[in-house]
Structure formats: structure tokens, C-alpha cells
């Protein structure tokens, strides 16, 4: 399971970044005292507008960046103290992490399998399963640079799952995918959940969150403003759909200022 306690992430902006965001404050708080707990067997969705801090939170969990304050426990391992154990137990996918375009999907799958120390026989079985599920067989030996966006995304998903992780973290997993591929991805995430894995996704697509997530945490300006199942959130705001519920939270949050 994942336990985030009071996570705060402050970025230092350089001059150019300060100019771009029209601020004179060199510090930018991307995540501000966020706490959440997600357990095995559920799909937890971080929902929020662009720049809310969803990706930063996920990157902190994945040990790619270090929290400024607070702790994150992944299967009992703290991300800063035991990063390698954390990375062993998670599969992480985000659109800005890519596979080396010069190699084939097949090579990359084996390469990352070795880095995750997956035994060869198990790796073969994993490849069989994932390549079949995502229909990768046909283009497994083509260099990744020759693949279409959808194929690349499928390949990236397969590779990120090579070590059969107990926890799967996908940052906007259906971004840029056509409707058919997007459906096969969300179906696979459900399958993983049903196998008892913990899936955390971030999204700004309401319909996707509605259909996919067991629990949703709404993040605005780096803070978690609401959390619960879809029906919890609808009941709390007295609305009919997630989009309306989201705007209720958004208004009350922005109204404070």
C-alpha cells in the first residue's frame, strides 16, 4: 500500500521560469501538505486541473524527485531512505518518460527485465502475456522510433509492467491514445486491480475517473480538497456527475481566496 504523510514539494525557479510564470518569488509550492492512503485491490485516481500537483506527487512516490517535507511509504519502504526497494515494487508510467527510440520493444522489454532482475523464464512468460494483451507481437522487432504514438504507448505500458509490480502508477495513462487503445488500457488497469494490485492514476478527464477509479482524490493548488468514492463525492456536493462535483469543490476552494 501507499501512505503519503503531509507531502510538500517546493521547487526553486530559475530566472527564466520566474519570468514565464510572471512571479518574483523564486519558490513554487507544487504540492502543499498532501496526505493520502491507497491500498491493494483498488484504483485510486488523482483528479485535478493542469498544474495542480498530480504529476509531482506521483514522481515523489516513484523516487524520481525528493519530497521537501513529509514522508511517503510504499509497501512499508520510505522513498528517501529505501528508494531501491520502492522502485522494485512499483511500475511507473508517464508521458515524459520514454523508451530509447533506437531499440525494438523486444530489446527494451528484456533490458528493463534484467534491470529489475526478473528471472529469464518468468520474463518470457510476462512477455508472452503482455505482448499478446496489447497486440505488440506484430511490431515487437521494429525500432521504437518507427512506431505510432499508440504503439509507443502500448510498448511503454508493457515495459513498465515487466517485473509484475504490486503497485502500478500511471500518470495520465490514456493521454494521446485513440478510443480503442484507451479502452484496452483502462480494461487492463481494472484487470490488475482485480488481481489484487494497487493502481494509482492521475487524470484530468472526468469521464475516465468516473468509470475507472474506485476512489478519487481531488487535488487543487497542491492540496487535497476532497476524497472518496464517486458516490461519496456526488453526495457531498449534491450533484449528478463528477464534473459538477469537481466544480463545486473548485469554486469553494477558489472562493476562499
Amino acid at each position, binding site marked *: 500500500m501507499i501512505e503519503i504523510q503531509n507531502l510538500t514539494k517546493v521547487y526553486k525557479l530559475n530566472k527564466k521560469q520566474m519570468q514565464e510564470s510572471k512571479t518574483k518569488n523564486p519558490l513554487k509550492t507544487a504540492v502543499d501538505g498532501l496526505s493520502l492512503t491507497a491500498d491493494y485491490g483498488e484504483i485510486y485516481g488523482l483528479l485535478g486541473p493542469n498544474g495542480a500537483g498530480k504529476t509531482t506527487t506521483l514522481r515523489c512516490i516513484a523516487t*524520481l524527485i*525528493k519530497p521537501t517535507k513529509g514522508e511517503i511509504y510504499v509497501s512499508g519502504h520510505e522513498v528517501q531512505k529505501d528508494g531501491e*526497494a520502492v*522502485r522494485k515494487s512499483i511500475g511507473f508510467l508517464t508521458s515524459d518518460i*520514454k*523508451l*530509447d527510440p533506437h531499440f525494438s520493444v523486444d530489446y527494451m522489454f528484456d533490458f528493463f527485465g534484467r*534491470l*529489475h532482475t526478473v528471472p529469464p523464464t518468468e520474463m518470457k512468460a510476462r512477455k508472452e502475456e503482455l505482448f499478446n494483451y496489447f497486440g505488440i507481437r506484430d511490431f515487437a522487432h521494429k525500432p521504437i522510433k518507427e512506431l505510432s504514438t499508440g504503439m509507443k504507448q502500448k510498448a511503454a505500458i508493457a515495459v513498465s509492467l515487466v517485473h509484475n509490480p504490486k503497485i502500478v502508477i500511471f500518470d495520465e495513462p490514456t493521454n494521446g491514445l485513440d478510443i480503442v487503445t484507451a479502452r484496452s488500457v483502462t480494461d487492463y488497469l481494472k484487470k490488475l486491480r482485480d488481481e489484487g494490485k494497487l493502481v494509482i492514476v492521475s487524470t484530468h478527464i472526468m469521464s475516465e475517473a468516473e468509470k475507472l477509479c474506485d476512489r478519487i482524490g481531488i487535488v487543487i493548488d497542491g492540496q487535497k480538497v476532497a476524497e472518496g468514492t464517486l458516490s461519496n463525492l456526488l453526495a457531498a456536493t449534491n450533484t449528478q456527475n463528477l464534473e459538477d462535483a469537481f466544480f463545486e469543490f473548485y469554486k469553494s476552494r477558489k472562493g476562499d481566496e
Partner: protein
Amino acid sequence: MNGMGSIFKKEMTRIFKDKKMIFSVFILPVLIMVGIMGLVGNLATSMVDDIESHIPIVYIQDEPDSFAAFIQDNGLEYDVRLISDQQEREDAEDQILNGEADLMIEFPADFDTAIASYQAGDEVPQIKTYYNPSEDYSSEAYNVISGQALETYRQTLLSQRVGNLDQIAVFNVNSDNEDMIIQDEEKAGGKAVGMMLPYFITILLFAGAMGIGTDMIAGEKERGTMASMLMTPIKRSSIALGKVFSLMSLSGLSSIISIAAMVAFMPLMMKGMTGGSGTSLTLTLNAAQIVMMAVLLLAIAFLYSAIIALISVFAKTTKEASSFVMPVYMLVLVVGLMTMFQTGTPKTNMFFIPIYNSALVLKNILAREATMYQYGITLATTVIVSAVLIGVIVKAFNSEKIMSA
């Protein structure tokens, strides 16, 4: 350690699977080097041949009969044009200035008479020659005619005056001494090669590592593929070391191929270096030299790879990395040039300066002058500096600011 091996293997596969990469990393440097040296050699040879085969155009003022006879008797091929008045002399000067004529010889009037009626105490007649040093043909005509032919002409006239020349020669220098050059042919060959080899090794090693290294680290950051490796449970240091070692192997291999090609094409290049005069210099390396060079080359490859990797880690894109590396490349080139023209025995403390010391020692190994002390210091400093740089690289790999910017 397992992770480091996988990274190493992946980087090697990346190069060896790609024909374009193999060509640009291993074959292109050799082609460029041999091509340039061969071209320079050929051009130099044909230039020398052209100058030597050119028939000098010589203007002569007041040509004495004895000189005309001398030219005839010795079978000298000159395009002789006689000057009879001041106007013609000025034209001749203009032609020499423009490179149309090569030499002008001015005899005193009644030269033959002055020679024949010479009495002790008389003023010695003077022959004046005029030429244009900026013109190759004119320079050559000056050397051959003023320097050699006129001297022979003088000897001819002198022997007519005194009979036996040996009477006044007193002594000769090296007129019959074929063994006058005492040198170790191999050492001399090594010295000639040693002058340019460190320079070439520097360029080739660094240039080879530069292209691959910037792509291997900054390129992976730019493409977003580095983060995917950072997401695996292997240590960051394994990724860093795997990359540096593969870079080192590739650039080392590339430089060894280049050196082998250079030794193979040595005759061709030597011809170029000595301007077609032909040379008997040969380069033979003994086992100790080869081992010393190989170990040192490995250490140099290690150092250069570490430098390039370090710069690439701090760059965000390949382009940025290339522009950061450029000044270092320039520095390395300058250091190579410095050793090329360094003479005498360098001071011991020079062998503590990284990059410079390795070029010095390479040169000394080839000239069979390297001491174990110099070699040891150089090897140690090179490895220690590389290790420190790698320490910094590993630290940088652990920094989120640098790696996920």
C-alpha cells in the same frame, strides 16, 4: 553490478547494431586521417616534383664566354635570356617580381679578362644574382644556381688558375664519409612519429568520445529515456558507471583502430611529412612499448570519457552538451600541439598535469625515452583524476535537479 553490465551491454548494442554508428565511430576517423595525410603527402610530392622539373628562366647581363661554355659543358638546362641594355634589365626585374622569370645574374663587364689578368691586390670581381624569395621557382633557381652552379663555376675557373685544387683546399669535410649519421633508426622513427601521434590520439580519442558521450547521457535526458532507467531498482552509480565504461571502451577501441591504421599507412604519411624526399625512417614497437601504450591509452580513454560524461550530465540537451564540450576539446587540442613542439626534457612536475602528461609520456614511449617514474606518475594522476570526476558524475546522477530537469 548486474545493472551496470546491462547498461554497458545496451550502450554497446546501440553502437554496434547501427551501421551508421559503426561507420562514424570507427571508420570515418581513419578515413579522414589517412585521407588528409595521403592528400597532403601527394600534394607535397607533386609540388616538389614540379619545382624540381621546372627549367629556370635566367636573365644574364654581360654573360662571359666562360660561363656560356660552363653551362654547355655541364649540360645545365637553363632558359637563358641575355640582357643588353638598361631597358631590358628593368623588364627582367619586373618579370622576376611577377614570377615570370626566376633569376637574374649580373656579371661585371669584361669578367673573363678581369679573371685572366688578375694580380694579387686587385679587387676580386663580383657576380650579383637577383631573385624573388616569395616565388617557389625563383627560390629553387637561387638555391640551385647561386648556391651550387656558381660555386662549381668558381672551382672550374680556380682550377684553371692554380692547376691542382688540392694545393689550396687544405682539408675536406665529409667528402668520403658514408657513415656520418650515428643514430638509432628505430628511435629516430619513434621520435618522428612521436611528434604527431599524441596529437592524433588526442584528437581521435576525444572526438570519438564526444559524439557518443553527449548522446549517451545528455541525449538520453533530452529524449526522456534516462528517467525510465532511473525508475529501475538499480543504483544510480551503476547507470553512471555503465555509461562511462561503455564510452571508454568505444572511444578506446576507436583510437586503437585509428592508431593501427596510422601505423599501417605510415609510409604514405611519412612521405607527406618529409615532402617527397623519401625517408628510411621506420617505426617498430617492442612488446614493452605496446603494453605501456595500451595501458596508458586505456587510462586516457577513461579520463576523456569521464570529462565528456561529466559535462553531458550537466547539459539538458545534446546540443547544449556539445557546446559545453567544445572549449574542453580546444584545450585538449592546444595541449596536444604543445607537446608536438616541446623540446628538451620536461621538468618532473609537468608529469603531474593531467592530459598534458599523457601526451608527453606517449611521445616519450615512442622515442624510447620514457622513464618508469614519469609513466607511473602519469598513469596514477590520470586514473585518480578520472575517479574523482566519476565520483562527481555519480553524485550528479543522484541529484533530482540535474537528472529530472
